[in-house]
């Protein structure tokens, strides 16, 4: 069936609310407004205000309340409007959810799912265009997911709810309107493995989330030039699927990492380091990275485009790596 990313997430929410009475959704404007990105539109009418809970603008309180409810055995889905605002709840996520199980000697389980919109590309300027998922992926105790496809938008949520530990789901804002075909019986998906989205033999393009589509576009452009690129979608930013990363790097012997985060201290840096540490002698070229320019996101379209990884830049980096040596 034809659907959108937004509808796929909504279908996942609906399924979770139908299947598990412990599940409830809370966040800013998830109810009467229908969700900032219209993801939860209609759910208030269907499930009522006890399970679709509009919250005040109190990120720390409602994320912390999600932790408390999860500790007590509920399965809260907390929507933080965007990753930018999640910094107001950072203490609860990093000093709370992530470490409660370990710090309590294994007693306290926090089966919390936090969804948030991430990324730039909509001309909403510096305070609404961050990609902090790499920061969260730094933190032990969290599982960090980046659904980049309709299947993952539809299937990652239920799997995340089965995880007895906190899971953060990053939905790229530019993806909500993405249309495509989704199997009628699409359902839960694995949340531990990366996925090869395009097999190839000449160079590995490793990415996730909002830059997957542009990376695939770059691969198509490269194919016309006779460069056969493999595209690996990380899907799971923590714990990283090191095996899949090393496998693709060894297969093509060349790797480019595409990451919308800033380059310094980025997730791309971590992926690069793992390749260099464990597959250095299998490489034919240095690992390259395509990241966002290290400036606050400017508002005008042309400058925003200059900041973000684009297909042309990805292809150029891949070309340089493919021709190296």
């Amino acid at each position, binding site marked *: 069936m034809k659907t959108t990313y937004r509808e796929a997430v909504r279908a996942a929410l609906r399924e979770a609310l139908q299947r598990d009475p412990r599940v409830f959704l809370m966040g800013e404007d998830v109810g009467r407004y229908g969700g900032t990105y219209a993801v939860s539109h209609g759910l208030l009418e269907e499930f009522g205000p006890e399970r679709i809970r509009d919250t005040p603008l109190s990120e720390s309180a409602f994320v912390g309340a999600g932790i408390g409810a999860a500790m007590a055995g509920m399965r809260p889905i907390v929507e933080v409007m965007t990753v930018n605002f999640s910094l107001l709840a950072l203490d609860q996520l990093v000093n709370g959810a992530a470490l409660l199980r370990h710090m309590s*000697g294994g007693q306290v389980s926090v089966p919390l799912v936090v969804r948030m919109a991430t990324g730039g590309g909509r001309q909403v300027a510096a305070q609404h265009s961050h990609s902090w998922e790499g920061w969260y992926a730094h933190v032990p105790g969290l599982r960090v997911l980046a659904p980049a496809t309709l299947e993952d938008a539809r299937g990652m949520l239920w799997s995340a709810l089965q995880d007895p530990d906190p899971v953060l789901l990053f939905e790229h804002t530019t993806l909500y309107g993405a249309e495509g075909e989704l199997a009628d019986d699409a359902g839960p998906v694995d949340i531990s493995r990366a996925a090869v989205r395009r097999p190839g033999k000449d160079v590995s393009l490793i990415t996730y989330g909002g830059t997957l589509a542009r990376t695939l576009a770059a691969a198509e452009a490269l194919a016309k030039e006779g460069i056969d690129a493999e595209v690996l979608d990380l899907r799971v930013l923590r714990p990283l699927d090191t095996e899949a990363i090393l496998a693709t790097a060894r297969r093509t012997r060349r790797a480019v990492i595409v990451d919308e985060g800033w380059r310094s201290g980025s997730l791309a840096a971590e992926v690069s380091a793992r390749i260099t540490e464990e597959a250095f002698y299998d490489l034919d070229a240095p690992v390259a990275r395509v990241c966002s320019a290290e400036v606050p996101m400017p508002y005008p379209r042309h400058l925003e485009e200059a900041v973000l990884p684009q297909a042309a830049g990805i292809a150029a980096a891949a070309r340089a790596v493919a021709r190296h040596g």
Partner: protein
Amino acid sequence: MTSTDPPAAPSREHGQALLADMLRIRRFEERCAALYGEGKIRGFLHLYVGEEAVAVGVFQALRPEDAVVATYREHGHALLKGVSAGAVMAEMFGKATGCSRGRGGSMHLFDAATRFYGGNAIVGAGLPQAVGLALADHLRGERRVTACFFGDGAVAEGEFHESMNLASLWRLPVLFVCENNRYAMGTAIERHQAQLDLPLKARGYAVPAESVDGMDVLAVEAAARRAAGQVRSGQGPFFLEARTYRFRAHSAYDPELYRNKEEVEAWKQRDPIPALAAVLRAAGHLDDALLARLEGAADREVDEAVRFAEASPWEPVEDLLRDLVAAPGGEGGRP
């Protein structure tokens, strides 16, 4: 409303139980201080000496099924919730038999079995979590109370205000207990609060609130029973301020440059333990022999806890990643 009427003397049995609880905590804390000096307990150590009447009074209004969220000055609260002194002491030692398997130490006592949810060393961070525990009870129709303890310092945190509003808006069963010991670490309340009437802040969020003399265990108990009763009956949260004082330094590292000895001595004159003992003596419920027996029992419990902690093993280093996440083959196995 501020309760000023002195409550009547308690029954013999109940009065003795209150005294015994306060003595347990006092003796436990004093031993912790000594063990810190010996290097057996390390890191930060925040003692509750002087504030015992608050937790002991409030716990009279709680039931075993109620949840408790506390601060980093929470040894006494854990004991009162039913965590054994041995498990608490072993935790302070960092031993594997500690209530958090030794991983948390003094500031991070947990016990899921008794619904003791920490042990939080981030000031204010426990409040939203208490709201969530209460939200779970609300959603499941459970008539339980979540008691959330925090200090006057937490009242300056945004999370205090966010949590008051959210708990009130959703009428959640949280008993907020502010242990106002007049200092946010070393900053006197007059120097960190523009408005010293703390219940007024709660009332600003439509949360009913009361202040009570936190050095008087009977007054605390009476106020807590009223407050918890209201919360349990489904009327939403309640804010109880207990005005108290810590007799010892903020932590073992604190040279106490910010308050003078006269102030400390003046508060020590209001020590809640002799104060209750005097009430019980006047009522004929206590004599020297009984007091000695209660003290002896407290000392024996602490002695036994220390022996248990001393004899307990350390967690093997090989278990370092255990319980980072739950799933077998999860992240713990794939660093």
